[in-house]
């Protein structure tokens, strides 16, 4: 178990290092080099050259990478030429907002998706299976941003029940915060819930046909426990892997939903940086996202190891 964890962490660290290398290389591949990139459009060549000296862009690439990595590790991601603010503080400001959105939507997805999948698998071909499968297909096919527009139209424009967008920090009142977070979290959670439901259903159908389920029934275990403990526990192993595969999609979803609901999170910061060609900020955000993604994947791997005794004992995962 311990070795499995150490191995996973080591792989995650290596992947992260490679990711930083890619980000670093990408910025240096920019037309005109990083100094041009770090300058606002239309800056005179003389100022660009000064920027290059200031940031040490005339030194060998390897040393530049080392310096840059060392600073990035300590949280120094440079200063945005557009806002003149340190990139790290801008990111720090927005992390809690995006984290809240991500956690809430993941929670909604799990609370809806897994029980719906279990319910559907309990009676395959039954009315609940049919309803859940059709709803899930819809949820899978509906693009986040359009679903977002639809719920804004319904709940904000038409019914005036909830705000159409924006954000209120928890410090200014939990009610207002949740009021603004509810629709985005539901929109983001629905697509994920659909994926989870489909995966849970198919994993449960496989588990419920397994011999050990028959054994559980043969020893008098009540049906809710057969489904909810014996079959579900084995199905969760597959479902957790699927959650890991969905993380990339979740990140894309966060950016779109933040755009639709005008939430000032990391996604909006990223898009603003693209539109304004603010490369320092972009570099920082991409690095952060890659790190978050890799760490989330690591957590999924660990959850997988906890759920699956075979991995725990032998750490043999294909």
């Amino acid at each position, binding site marked *: 178990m311990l070795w499995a964890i150490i191995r996973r962490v080591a792989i995650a660290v290596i992947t992260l290092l490679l990711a930083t290398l890619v980000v670093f290389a990408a910025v240096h591949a920019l037309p005109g080099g990083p100094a041009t990139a770090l300058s606002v459009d239309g800056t005179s060549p003389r100022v660009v050259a000064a920027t290059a000296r200031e940031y040490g862009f005339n030194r060998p690439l390897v040393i530049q990478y080392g310096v840059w990595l060392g600073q990035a590790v300590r949280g120094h991601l440079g200063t945005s030429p557009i806002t003149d603010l340190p990139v790290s503080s801008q990111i720090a400001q927005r992390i809690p907002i995006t984290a809240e959105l991500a956690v809430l939507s993941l929670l909604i997805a799990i609370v809806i998706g897994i029980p719906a999948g279990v319910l559907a698998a309990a009676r395959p071909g039954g009315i609940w299976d049919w309803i859940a499968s059709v709803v899930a297909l819809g949820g899978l096919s509906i693009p986040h941003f359009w679903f977002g527009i639809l719920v804004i139209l319904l709940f904000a424009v038409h019914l005036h029940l909830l705000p159409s967008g924006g954000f209120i920090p928890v410090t200014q009142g939990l009610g207002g915060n949740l009021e603004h977070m509810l629709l985005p979290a539901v929109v983001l959670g629905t697509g994920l819930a659909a994926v989870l439901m489909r995966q849970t259903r198919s994993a449960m159908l496989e588990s419920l046909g397994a*011999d050990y389920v*028959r054994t559980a029934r043969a*020893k*008098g*275990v009540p049906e809710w426990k057969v489904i909810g403990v*014996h079959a579900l526990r*084995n199905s969760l192993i597959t479902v957790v892997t699927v959650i890991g595969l969905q993380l990339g999609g979740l990140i894309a979803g966060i950016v779109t939903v933040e755009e639709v609901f005008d939430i000032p999170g990391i996604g909006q910061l990223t898009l603003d940086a693209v539109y304004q060609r603010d490369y320092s900020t972009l570099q920082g955000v991409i690095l952060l996202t890659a790190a978050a993604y890799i760490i989330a994947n690591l957590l999924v791997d660990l959850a997988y190891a906890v759920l699956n*005794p*075979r991995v725990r004992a032998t750490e043999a995962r294909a």
Partner: protein
Amino acid sequence: MTLLEIDDLRVRFGTAEGPVLAINGLSLALAEDEVVALVGESGCGKTLTGLSVLGLEPPGARVDGRIWFRGQDLRTAPAKRLRSVRGGEIAMIFQEPMTSLNPAFSVGRQVAEALRQHRKVSGRQARDRVMELFELVRMPDPRQHLHQYPHQLSGGMQQRVMIAMAIACEPAVLIADEPTTALDPTIQAQILDLLADLRSRLHMAVLLITHNLGVVADIADRVVVMYAGHKAEEAPAGELLRSPEHPYTVGLLNAVPQPGMHRGTHPLTPITGLVPVLRQPPEGCVFGPRCPLVTEQCQREPPQPREVAPGHLAACFRPGELSPGAGGAEDRGRPAAAGQGPA
């Protein structure tokens, strides 16, 4: 005294090409303390019989008939009563211990679950009892096995865990479905020995489902031979092995290697053809297409089990006309008799 009685069991599966009859009118009784072996080829419905007793038949199966247990029909018993019977009064072990144990839980927990389902015991008491059970099924290190997972145990050990789980609540009946088929031959003998020992210690009645007549000789009191969902013959174990009356039983015995048999003099004789898949109740005897003695009468009406000697039933119009070691070999090649199953 009869403890468990299967009365006119019929199991059907609906398919796109019409219903398939898996079991057609099977009756059998199990007395207290008795070991009855249910014998037949793969696909003859013996496993399904065991599962039907506990209401564990696969989805899509339509089961008719009665399962009398302690004065109650389990097929119509309320769900709660059925659950208390399962594992509490009638326990079952299966052919594949590897897949029959839940890979996600420790074996200790799985055995304890069987116990706690039917007895009010504390966690500590359950654990102590599980260790006791592990000792009873002769596992070498009960304390260590408690926390092991199925994949960490050998097939023989896994089957011991399954047996420990089954006897946890000292059931009156144990249904053992091919408990040794998936195991190595040396382990097979150990497990059979263990089962024989446990049943005399715990006074269990055992329904032993097997395709192996060699196993039968060792531990069964009575034998029921099944063919294509029908009962072909039923007799005390010794008598059945000595003087089988039904040509199918004779065929089965001829296919079993006997000690002292020499190559050449007594060749092993296979029964030609396959067990038929029955799409409707057959016109005549289900074994007719493979039977060396088949007559016109056999093709017209199905023979019912009749008493041919005290306690010895055979569903055949010409019982006892084929004797072991002879018969089959000469008739084997008859084209009319071979492979006419409607498969």
